[in-house]
C-alpha cells in the first residue's frame, strides 16, 4: 500500500432492519418498523474506511445513498463508522426505479462528486440488498461510468500505483483480478468484520452536513430516473405458499424412528 490520495465512494442503501418481519404495501414498497443500513453494505463501508486508514496519503470516503428522506440516517450511521461525508439522492423522480434507473441516478451523482471533490478513484458496493435481493446496481453504475468492475470480491489484495487487485470468489475457487483505477468493487461478507460506531464518529455524524440532491443537481434527465426510467418492473411481493401436508415419523426410540424414516425414504424411492 503506497501513499497516495484516493477518493472512495461507497454506495449504501437503507433497508428494513429485520427481514424476518418484512411486509410490503400495496405499491410494493417495504414496510418496516425499523430501518438501517443494508447489512451487506456494511462490508463495503468497512472496506472503504480500512483502505483509508491504511493509506499514508489523504483519502476521503464519501457515502452515497438513494432513498426517501429518512435514508439520511444510513449516511449518518456510515459517518459514525468512519466515512467522511455523504450525499442523499432523494426526489419523487427517483422513486420506483429498477436497478438500471437507480444506477443511472447514482452514476450521475458520482460524476458530480468527481467535479466537486476530486475524481472518484474507487467505488464500493455490497453484495446485494436484503429487501430487493438483486445485487445488480454496482455493476450497472460502473458500466454507465465506463469503468472496470469486479463483483463477489472477498479480499482487496493490493491497492496502489493507480491499480487495485482483488480476489473474486467463484464456485470452484477464486480469481485474482487487477483493475486500473477508477474501478468498481462489489464485496462479500468475507472481506472484513464491520466495526460499530465510535463516540467520536457519532459526534461527527451529528454535525455533518449532508446535502440532498435531486435530478437537476446531478445533471440527470428526470425522465430516465425512477419508475419512468425503469426497463424492468416488479409488482407487489407476496409470501409464496408454504409447503404443507408433511408426514411425521413415529417411533418409540431413536432406532425405531431411524428405521421408519429409512423405510419411508425407500418407499418414495429417494434412497
Amino acid at each position, binding site marked *: 500500500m503506497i501513499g497516495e490520495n484516493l477518493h472512495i465512494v461507497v454506495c449504501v442503501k437503507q433497508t428494513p432492519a429485520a*427481514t424476518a418481519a*418484512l411486509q*410490503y404495501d400495496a405499491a410494493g414498497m*417495504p414496510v418496516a418498523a425499523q430501518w438501517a443500513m443494508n447489512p451487506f453494505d456494511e462490508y463495503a463501508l468497512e472496506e472503504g474506511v480500512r483502505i483509508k486508514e491504511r493509506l499514508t496519503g489523504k483519502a476521503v470516503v464519501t457515502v452515497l445513498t438513494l432513498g426517501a428522506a429518512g435514508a439520511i440516517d444510513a449516511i449518518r450511521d456510515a459517518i459514525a463508522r468512519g466515512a467522511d461525508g455523504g450525499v442523499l439522492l432523494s426526489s419523487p423522480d427517483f422513486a420506483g426505479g429498477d436497478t*438500471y434507473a437507480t444506477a443511472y441516478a447514482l452514476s450521475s451523482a458520482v460524476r458530480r462528486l468527481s467535479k466537486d471533490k476530486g475524481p472518484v478513484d474507487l467505488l464500493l458496493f455490497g453484495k446485494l440488498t*436484503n*429487501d*430487493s*435481493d*438483486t*445485487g*445488480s*446496481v454496482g*455493476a*450497472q453504475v*460502473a*458500466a454507465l461510468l465506463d469503468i*472496470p*468492475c*469486479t*463483483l*463477489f470480491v472477498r479480499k482487496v489484495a493490493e491497492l496502489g500505483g493507480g491499480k487495485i487487485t482483488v480476489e*473474486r*470468489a*467463484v*464456485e*470452484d475457487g*477464486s*480469481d*485474482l*483480478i*487487477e*483493475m486500473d483505477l477508477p*474501478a468498481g468493487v462489489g464485496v462479500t*461478507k*468475507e472481506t472484513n468484520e464491520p466495526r460499530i460506531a465510535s463516540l467520536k464518529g457519532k459526534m461527527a455524524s451529528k454535525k455533518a452536513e449532508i446535502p440532498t440532491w435531486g435530478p437537476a443537481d446531478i445533471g440527470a434527465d428526470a425522465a430516465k430516473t425512477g419508475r419512468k426510467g425503469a*426497463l*424492468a*418492473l*416488479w*409488482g*407487489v*411481493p*407476496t*409470501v*409464496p405458499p*408454504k*409447503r404443507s401436508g*408433511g408426514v*411425521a*415419523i413415529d417411533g418409540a426410540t*431413536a*432406532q425405531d*424412528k*431411524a428405521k421408519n*424414516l*429409512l423405510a419411508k*425414504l425407500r418407499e418414495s424411492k*429417494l*434412497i
Partner: protein
Amino acid sequence: MADNKDVWCVADAKGGKASPGLFELLGEGRKLADALGQKLCVVLIGKGVAGGAELGAYGVDLVRVIDHAAFENFTDEAYARALAELAKKHAPRLILLAGNAFGKSLGPRAAALLPAGLAAEVSELSFDKAAGAFMGSRTCGGGGFVAPVSWTAQPEMATVRLGSFAKAAKQDGKTAEVAVEAVDPSGWPVRTRFKAFSPEESKEIDIGRADVIVAGGYALGGAENFKMLRELANLLGGAVGASRRAVDSGWIPYRNQVGLTGRTVRPKLYIACGISGQIQHLAGMSQSGTVVAINKDPKAPLMELADIRVEADLFEVVPAIIEELKKQKLA
C-alpha cells in the same frame, strides 16, 4: 415493441467447454423458445471454444461462439462488452444467465450497456402470447417473498435463481448449428487483467450438484459433529450442507453454506438436522424435492414445512440412521 427474436442462454467456456450453469437454463429456455416459435441459442464466450454442436442434445438450435484470447478468463468488462455488441447485432428477444457469480456479474453490466431491463433472481418465467410479453416472478425480501416481474423494452434479460428451473433432459442424436461470431476485442481498452485462478479442491461432492444433501445447523455444537453428517451423506451418496450460523462459527467452509448469503440448492432429498429454518436458510433450499427435518422442537419453522418430520434429538437419531443404513447395506 421491437422485433427481437430468439432466446439466448449465455455461458462462459472455461477451458473451451460450456460451464455447468448453462444447463440450468436450457430446459426452460427450450420451452420459452417454443412458446415464441423461435430458436433457442446458446452464446459461448471463451478462448479455444471446442464444439458446441453437441448442445443440440439439450434442445439448442444454434450456438453463437465468441472465441478470442481476450476471453480466456471471465472479466466483467470484456465479456459484458462482447455480449452487448453481439446482442446489438442480432437483437435477441430474451437473454438468460445463470444466477451464479458469472451470470450475476455479467448480466447487469451487459444490461446497462445495451441498455436492457434486467430482472435478477428470477424463479419462474413464461411467455404471455396474448400480451406478447414475458412474465416472471423473482425472489426478494431476503428470499422470503416472490414478486411478479415484467419488462418495458426488449430484449428482456434475467438472471435465473440457481435451482429454480429443472435441468434440461439430454436427447442424443441432435446437433446444434454453430456460428462463429466476429467479435474482435483487440481494439478495446484493457483495464481489467485476469492474473490467476486458484482452484479450491474438494474431495466431497459439491452441494450444487448433489442429489442428496445432509445439512446441519448451529444445534450441532461444533466442527467435530459434522463428521456424523458427513458419514450419513457418504452412505447416501450425497453432500453436506450447513446453515449460516454453523459456517460463521467456523465449523464448515463457506462453500457448504445453504441460504440467502450462501448457495441455492435443489437436491432430490434434503435432510436438515437441527436446523430451525430461518427464512434466509429456506431461501436456499425450498426448491428441494423432498425435505426431511430432524429436530427436537416440533414448532421449528422447518419442521412445519418439511415433507417428512422426525421429532427427535439429532444426536440420537442420526447415529441410529447411520447404523441402520450400514446394517441394511451389509444385509
